[in-house]
């Protein structure tokens, strides 16, 4: 089941394939989700989701509260389990009982609505912990890398600060840098600006735009329609556990086909 947008992406990226196994002539999706069903008890939260994310693509997921956006995102890095269907991340089938959860997760950076920085560590320590413990980098190398990332998110002067001394926008930028420090193959964002004061939204979105421009593969759940339009390669509209509509931002925002999409967009735009 490949949708047209995905086919287009495949064509676009045919010659940029950097597969390590070398067996692929065409770019394969980095993440594929195949008719995934997820239940909380008897409540079906995901009702057969199909979805592909291609390398360097920015996929934006929009939809009303409770539609299952976070749950879908959390299934991708095994923070939630699913009951039916299959998710394949970087060639690994997540339903495989022998799956090494940590190996999947280290390839997917995740940014949370509530930042979730480690409050007992300085900004720099937040950034170097996982590269040292998981990637087995040397401390010097990790620090060098972390400083470059802090520079990139505009927080070089904050490396010694504790998270509680930073504004929300600064904390979220640190959280993005922390995820990037693992050199993930893709980044997952779950409403990264929803907990921010309005004046801080832009600084975080700007960092995300830079990332997109550099070719980072991104899955972004957001209510920032401006960002979706400007940065998204593809937009997915979810409602009640289903993908109702998807396409380019121009199509979804310009001429939505589904009534539910129209109703949602008329409320948020």
């Amino acid at each position, binding site marked *: 089941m490949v949708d047209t947008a995905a086919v287009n992406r495949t064509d676009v990226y045919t010659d940029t394939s950097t597969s390590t196994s070398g067996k692929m002539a065409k770019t394969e999706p980095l993440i594929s989700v195949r008719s995934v069903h997820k239940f909380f008890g008897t409540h079906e939260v995901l009702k057969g989701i199909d979805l592909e994310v291609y390398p360097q693509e920015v996929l934006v997921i929009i939809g009303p509260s409770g539609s299952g956006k976070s749950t879908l995102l959390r299934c991708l890095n095994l923070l939630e389990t699913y009951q039916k269907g299959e998710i394949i991340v970087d060639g690994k089938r997540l339903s495989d009982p022998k799956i090494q959860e940590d190996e999947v997760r280290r390839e997917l950076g995740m940014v949370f609505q509530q930042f979730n920085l480690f409050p007992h560590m300085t900004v720099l320590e937040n950034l170097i912990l*996982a590269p040292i413990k998981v990637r087995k980098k040397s401390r010097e190398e990790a620090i060098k890398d972390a400083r470059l990332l802090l520079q990139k998110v505009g927080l070089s002067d904050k490396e010694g600060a504790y998270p509680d001394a930073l504004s929300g926008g600064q904390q979220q930028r640190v959280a993005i840098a922390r995820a990037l420090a693992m050199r993930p193959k893709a980044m997952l964002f779950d409403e990264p600006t929803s907990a921010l004061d309005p004046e801080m939204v832009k600084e975080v979105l700007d960092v995300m735009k830079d990332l997109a421009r550099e070719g980072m593969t991104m899955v972004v759940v957001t209510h920032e329609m401006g960002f979706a339009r400007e940065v998204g390669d593809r937009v997915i509209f979810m409602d009640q556990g289903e993908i109702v509509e998807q396409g380019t931002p121009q199509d979804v925002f310009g001429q939505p086909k589904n009534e539910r999409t129209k109703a949602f967009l008329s409320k948020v735009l």
Partner: protein
Amino acid sequence: MSFVEQINQGLSWLDLRVDIIWDYRDLFIRGIYYTIILSMSGVGIGLVLGLFAGMAKLARSLWIRWPAIAYIEFFRGTPLFVQIMLLHFAVLPTLLGRSPSPVISGIIALALNSGAYISEIFRAGIQSIARGQMEAARSLGLSHGMAMRYIILPQAFRRMIPPLGNELIVVLKDSSLLSAIAAPELANAARITMGATSRPWEPYMTIAVIYLVITLILASLVSRLERKLDYGRHSRS
């Protein structure tokens, strides 16, 4: 006996004789030493027991959880006095094949008892750390154990310092029950002194003051430690 004479006699009770304590000073000094040794080692071992029991109680597997729950409930649900007697006169002699020294029995009893309470402190401390911290750590690829060690426990520890300090003070006072098995601690010194002199006021007032001084010192050490470990909370919250 006239009313006045009766009052006189009553007041003569308060005619404290400091020289009694002086005569038995070695007993009390040894008592201070053992009271501190017994409670510190008890809580020290209790910390390890409590960490394991607390984590076991949070485990998913019933086979790990159940023994932890049984241990915790038994030692919190029965009197320490009974636990001391059982250990010293029944359990340890059976296991060792001889009478254990009161000091050893005492440390084991205090360790097992405080371990049960400390496990609840650990569990509450761990659970008080927001779930988001664990998820953030796991999303970076850290294993559950690493996330516990580097993210959850250091934060939980800070929150556990006040209740742990409180537990140390409780154990210090409860160690007086070990006089029942003649462990050479403070209450035992008072008991022996009273037996030899038939004077209850001096020895028991003396150890009351000593206990009070030690617990006040401990309380101030704990609150100093707590302030020292308070990270980055000064500028914003």
